[in-house]
């Protein structure tokens, strides 16, 4: 698949989508009053950041950074940057871990307060 000629459109698509995801997620995380909605917002933000990080490592016309038997002997193969991919891999796993802990906290808050609405959980000032 050759997308080199559409690079300008792709720039807008990838950067735009990821920044859009970040903003939508931030909006949900800051405005919504339901704790679960807040976690959904945070996970959307995470996805946006990951897409942004990955788009930075992309090279037009590059192949995946894998020296498979089909690629290994060819000269002048352009490969996309593997470093952001490794970083995103780490970030996804860490994001999942944090989401899991956050949701466990929500379950425990629900045990005590029988609600997941911030406005009704106010023992400490929010």
């Amino acid at each position, binding site marked *: 698949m050759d997308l080199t000629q559409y690079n300008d459109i792709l720039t807008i698509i*990838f950067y735009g989508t990821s920044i859009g995801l970040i903003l939508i997620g931030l909006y949900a995380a800051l405005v919504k009053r339901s704790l679960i909605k807040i976690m*959904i917002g945070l*996970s959307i933000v995470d996805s946006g950041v*990951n897409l942004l990080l990955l788009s930075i490592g992309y090279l037009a016309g590059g192949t995946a950074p894998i020296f498979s038997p089909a690629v290994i002997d060819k000269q002048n193969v352009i490969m996309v940057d593997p470093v952001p991919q490794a970083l995103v891999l780490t970030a996804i796993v860490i994001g999942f871990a944090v989401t899991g802990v956050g949701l466990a906290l929500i379950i425990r808050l629900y045990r005590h307060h029988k609600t997941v609405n911030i406005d009704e959980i106010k023992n400490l000032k929010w």
Partner: protein
Amino acid sequence: MILLIAIIIMAIILLAAAIYAIIQKDLLYAVIATSVISLILSIMYYVLQAPDVALTEAAIGVALTTIVFIITIRNTERYEGKKYIKVGKKIIKK
């Protein structure tokens, strides 16, 4: 060209799903929307030549994150806000 159109459509679905996820009051649907986001993201990662990340996102984002959210919703409440209340097995508007 077809690929480009496919990417554009995916980007639109991605943003639409994100907006749907935050305006939907039924949290279960919102969570399904986030899993749609993850699914499309994993295709996008593949387009960006990152099969490793695509596989991770598909496994963690689509499957595990969704299931963890669903477990939480099952243990807490399904609807956002105070508009809905559960009477017996039915959900009614207040």
